[in-house]
């Protein structure tokens, strides 16, 4: 299957604006399924962004972050063509990683 991570990283002068969307249910643990059974919590805990071996962003999330979570931030540095590595891991130990190119 395709990556669960979509990234749009654009260099503007001295800084790079990063937007990402991750495909993940982010089940809160408070929602019931069709049969009335609680869907167990299943959510991303940590997302990291690395540029040039430097950690430029970390997100720590709980179950209150929306399904298919979105994130936007900016960091100083980064230029067109640079690689940006993104990794997420969830409370069930699943994870995914991708490397995007800064536009």
């Amino acid at each position, binding site marked *: 299957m395709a990556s669960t991570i979509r990234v749009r990283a654009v260099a503007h002068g001295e800084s790079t604006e990063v937007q990402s969307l991750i495909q993940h249910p982010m089940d*809160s643990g408070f929602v019931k399924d069709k049969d009335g059974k609680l869907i167990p919590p299943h959510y991303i805990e940590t997302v990291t962004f690395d540029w040039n071996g430097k950690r*430029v*962003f970390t*997100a720590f999330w709980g179950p209150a972050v*929306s*399904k298919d979570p979105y994130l*936007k*931030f900016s960091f100083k540095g980064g230029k067109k063509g640079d690689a940006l590595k993104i990794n997420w891991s969830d409370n069930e130990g699943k994870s995914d990683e991708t490397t995007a190119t800064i536009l």
Partner: protein
Amino acid sequence: MSRIIIATPARLAVERRLVLQILGIGSLAAMGLAPGLVPRAQAAEQSLAWPKNAFAQKNETAALDALYEKPIVVPSDKVSLDVPEIAENGAVVPVSVSAALPNVTAIALLIPENPFTLAAYYPIPEGTEPSVSCRLKMAKTSDVVAVVEADGKHYGARKQVKVTLGGCGG
């Protein structure tokens, strides 16, 4: 009930003293996460752990205490919190925070009326703008609280978001 209080000059003085004391040991409490003593630079760069204890708290004070080691949060217009007045859907509430403050080390987002108060916690490494946007779930009408840590102090902003019953989807 809220920890975001209007700080009196006396309180600020106390806080300043506390901060000065803490600075000596590298404001490790800044992160307030990992049980061990982690040098700040390293904490911000690589090896932060998911703040399990803070995410388990069910009220604002407890969550902030777990996150920042009993901070005194001062309301500040330097923290701008952008949220809708009425959520189009409680499942997807766009939230943006930015801080016009130097040396920001972390941004926390809390929703006091949710089952678990802490929604998201963003340590801000050096060189990263003190600004973040994300989308949060809200169980019902609640304040959204942003607490920014800068130079070891804590600045807050809060705004109410109304969550009404939808269900027809327009």
